[in-house]
């Protein structure tokens, strides 16, 4: 058992404060100026330097695009060489054979490869992460084969690519135009990664990667998001292919499966899920062979050793290594005296800080129950019914306890109500809307939230960011806006509001002091509270709590009971799954008892408590 010291332990101060810093436009402007100056210098450099920069920048774009899928959503794509090839070949072929305009070919490449990515993602995400890696790997193999074995692609020798137009006379002082082009491409890629990472969508992406049920319960359509991110990543690879076509020759050897792995190495070497890591990795991997001038075989051996060494010795990559060092340094400065102690907030405060509940349904429909299950049947494997004709009704604005011995089907019923599972028979209505065929995302939009028995949260993110995930269904089009988040007019306002709402929610559950701490560093009790805060943040009308009191200390349990009463006062209907009868009968207005997949008793708490069978089956009296 972990000691759940909500009251008596102090939060550590470290944690990823960096991500929550407000944006400093001046820092970004300075960075941009430096970038432009560097580009100017490159554009006037020697041909040798320019060659290095061209390749490094193109692979920088590819590495960033791969990091979007590998780092942020945990999908290891080995298809990026193929997507890259598609962009390069499309550009070269359409230009050489059909004389399309180069400027029209950029959007064409982006859209084409993006669409291919969407289809590839949709097909390959059906089974598992490994299947995704394999399918994308085969995709690259197939494209290489098509490029080498067919006449229209020029076979092994490849094709001669188009020549990038130089600057018009007045601008020729800028130097080599292609350098400006690929550095601009790299800048856009960095901006997209930065935008995503600083948008409120970022915690949702990480939740999809690390805690998929949590993201789904918050309203994210996880499969769609994964496919879309892969589509975006593919589109970026297509753009990289367009730029690459201008480097001279486009041939199959430049896009074989080893290139896919090389890109992955760049990402891992620089640091997964970091903005600059992939760029550094790309620069290193592409320039290393040119700089170290040795026997090509030894060079490859060195490369191979590098792959192994990086993976084995620095799994977090270069940026990760630097961060770890920084954290070790910062962690030592620990202002223990000023660290706020978490106390149970007095009830009076609670009502003030609670985020407003979503408006209850129109008065006329007040009689519609919050949750109504009719004759629900469910079996995990054919034959053994876990739930056998369960009727379960939760009236509006009540706390409804759901109890039963282990294996009685409580969690299964909750998963059915929450849409993680679909019943084989029966109907499930939430606020009068039949939802038995809909998934969790549809429920979140209908004001339904849940927590999990064992908290599933993004452990590397602060508690506050985890609560932001819970607000997903409340911010319109956050997923679509995320890639260009920083430049959108309403974005800062929305981000501020979301932060405020998340902080309010954390205050409401009494865990505000832990807002900046990574979930990995907080005690068990705070994890549970963070979960609750995430579920409450969007102001749900119906809340299902799966054993929220498990593993809490007595004072924490009291605190949680207080919160539940407060939620009820503000009109939220709560379903509470719990093992401790004491609290269930004290807190709940109504109680349903399950045993072996059937309802043993259901009704007002006092009545159920006196039920003969319940006393025998469950209370052991």
């Amino acid at each position, binding site marked *: 058992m972990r000691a759940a010291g909500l009251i008596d332990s102090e939060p550590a101060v470290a944690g990823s404060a960096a991500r929550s810093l407000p944006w400093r436009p001046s820092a970004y402007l300075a960075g941009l100026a430096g970038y432009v100056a560097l580009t100017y210098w490159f554009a006037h450099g020697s041909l040798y330097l320019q060659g290095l920069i061209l390749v490094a920048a193109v692979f920088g774009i590819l590495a960033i695009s791969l990091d979007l899928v590998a780092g942020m959503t945990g999908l*290891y794509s*080995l298809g990026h060489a193929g997507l890259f090839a598609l962009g390069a070949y499309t550009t070269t072929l359409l230009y050489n054979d059909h004389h399309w305009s180069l400027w029209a070919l950029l959007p064409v490449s982006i859209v084409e490869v993006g669409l291919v990515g969407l289809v590839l993602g949709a*097909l*390959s995400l*059906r*089974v598992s*992460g*490994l*299947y995704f*890696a*394999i*399918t994308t790997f*085969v995709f690259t*193999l*197939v494209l290489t*084969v*098509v490029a*080498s*074995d067919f006449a229209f692609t020029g076979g092994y020798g490849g094709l001669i690519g188009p020549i990038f137009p130089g600057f018009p006379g007045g601008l020729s002082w800028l130097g080599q135009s292609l350098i400006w082009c690929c550095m601009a491409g790299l800048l856009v890629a960095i901006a997209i990664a930065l935008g995503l990472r600083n948008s409120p969508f970022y915690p949702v992406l990480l939740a999809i990667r690390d805690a998929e049920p949590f993201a789904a319960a918050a309203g994210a359509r996880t499969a769609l998001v994964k496919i879309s991110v892969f589509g975006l990543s593919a589109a970026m690879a297509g753009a990289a292919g367009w730029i690459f076509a201008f480097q001279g020759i486009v041939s199959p050897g430049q896009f074989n499966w*080893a290139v896919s*792995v090389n890109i*992955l*190495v760049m990402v*891992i070497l620089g640091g997964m899920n970091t903005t600059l890591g992939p760029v550094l990795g790309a620069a290193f991997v592409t320039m290393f062979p040119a700089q170290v001038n040795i*026997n090509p*075989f*030894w060079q*490859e*051996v060195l*490369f*191979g*050793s*590098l*792959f*192994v060494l*990086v*993976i*084995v010795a620095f*799994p977090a990559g270069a940026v990760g290594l630097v961060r770890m060092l920084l954290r070790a340094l910062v962690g030592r400065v620990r202002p223990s005296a000023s660290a706020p102690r978490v106390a149970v907030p007095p009830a009076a405060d609670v009502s003030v800080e609670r985020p407003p509940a979503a408006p209850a349904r129109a008065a006329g429909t007040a009689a519609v129950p919050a949750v109504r299950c009719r004759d629900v049947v469910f079996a995990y494997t*054919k*034959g*053994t*019914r876990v739930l056998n004709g369960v009727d379960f009704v939760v009236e509006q604005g009540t706390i409804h306890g759901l109890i039963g011995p282990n294996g009685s089907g409580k969690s299964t019923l909750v998963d059915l109500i929450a849409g993680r599972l679909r019943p084989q028979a029966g109907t499930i209505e939430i606020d009068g809307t039949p939802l038995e065929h809909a998934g969790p995302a549809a429920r979140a939009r209908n004001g339904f939230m849940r927590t999990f028995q064992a908290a599933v949260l993004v452990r590397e993110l602060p508690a506050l960011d985890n609560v932001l995930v819970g607000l997903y269904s409340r911010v319109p089009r956050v997923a679509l806006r995320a890639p260009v988040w920083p430049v959108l007019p309403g974005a800062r306002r929305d981000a501020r509001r979301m932060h405020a709402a998340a902080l309010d929610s954390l205050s409401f559950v009494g865990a505000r002091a832990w807002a900046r701490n990574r979930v990995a560093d907080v005690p068990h009790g705070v994890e549970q509270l963070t979960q609750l805060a995430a579920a409450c943040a969007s102001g749900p009308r119906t809340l299902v709590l799966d054993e929220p009191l498990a593993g809490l200390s007595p004072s924490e349990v009291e605190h949680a009971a207080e919160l539940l009463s407060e939620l009820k006062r503000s009109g939220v209907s709560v379903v509470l799954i719990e093992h401790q009868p004491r609290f269930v009968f004290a807190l709940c207005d109504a109680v349903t008892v399950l045993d072996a997949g059937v309802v043993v008793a259901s009704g007002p708490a006092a009545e159920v408590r006196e039920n003969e069978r319940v006393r025998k089956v469950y209370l052991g009296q």
Partner: protein
Amino acid sequence: MLQVLLSGLAIGAVYGLVAMGFAIAFYVTRVINFAQGQLLMVAVMVTAAIARTGASPVLAIVCGILAAGAVGVLTYLVAVRPVLAFDRFSFAWLVSTLGVALILENLAAIIWGPTSRSFPTLLSGTSVHVGGATLTLQEVVTIAVAIVLAVAFEVVRKRTLFGKLGMAIAYDPEMARAIGANTTLFAIVAFAAAGVFAGVAGVLIGPITYSNPYLGDTYGIAGFVALMIGGTERPVAAMVGGLLLGVLGEGANRLINTQASDWFPFVVVVVILLLMPEGLFSIGGRLSGLLRGATRPREAAS
């Protein structure tokens, strides 16, 4: 037609052995060793090098196969174990095993030169006539060895305690460890076996391909495609996938054009990945699942 079938089986047996190597390592550790093809190459190169010194070809072949097994174990210890120790569910081994492949391929090129060299032949040019088709003795032996090894593996897996423990580890490594299974030992054995399978494939194909440091690429990819056809869940299915791939490739060469076997297998694998994502034989599992499902509810209803 029979000729196509038999020649296809002969080359398919080699693919199948490599694919089984992939599958055995994957079965126990959930890792696809991308240096699998290079293990084949190691066996070929070592055998050829020892034979060149004038030693008996049999000794050379045994040494070659053992070398492949040893390099397999080394791959596990250096490139796989540390990755899994850091995070059992990470896919970082994609990169580290590929690194090993690069190292092996280029070290071989440095040591023995990048060009093709001779390979000892044990079974000189005798041919065997089957129906209207002609096979070399080498091809007959290849098919026979592949079948014997596949059956032997299956017997060990299903009939011995060691094999059953292996199955337990494949199913749930943490649980298997809890009952006292030495998962590291099993992983080492699996990688050694994977190396031996690749090594056997190497010495069987060596007389045709000669020794060349880049053999690993060709046969590694063919073995991987065979694995995809058969599905990753059962090593024997990988052998069947290899045989199928061999026959399809031969057929494509005969019916489409002589280069068709370069790309035809990929068409097959794409179709299979699209229609049966868990491999060709998953459909058998689904069928038997349906059958079992059809009988069960009646019991429950009573």
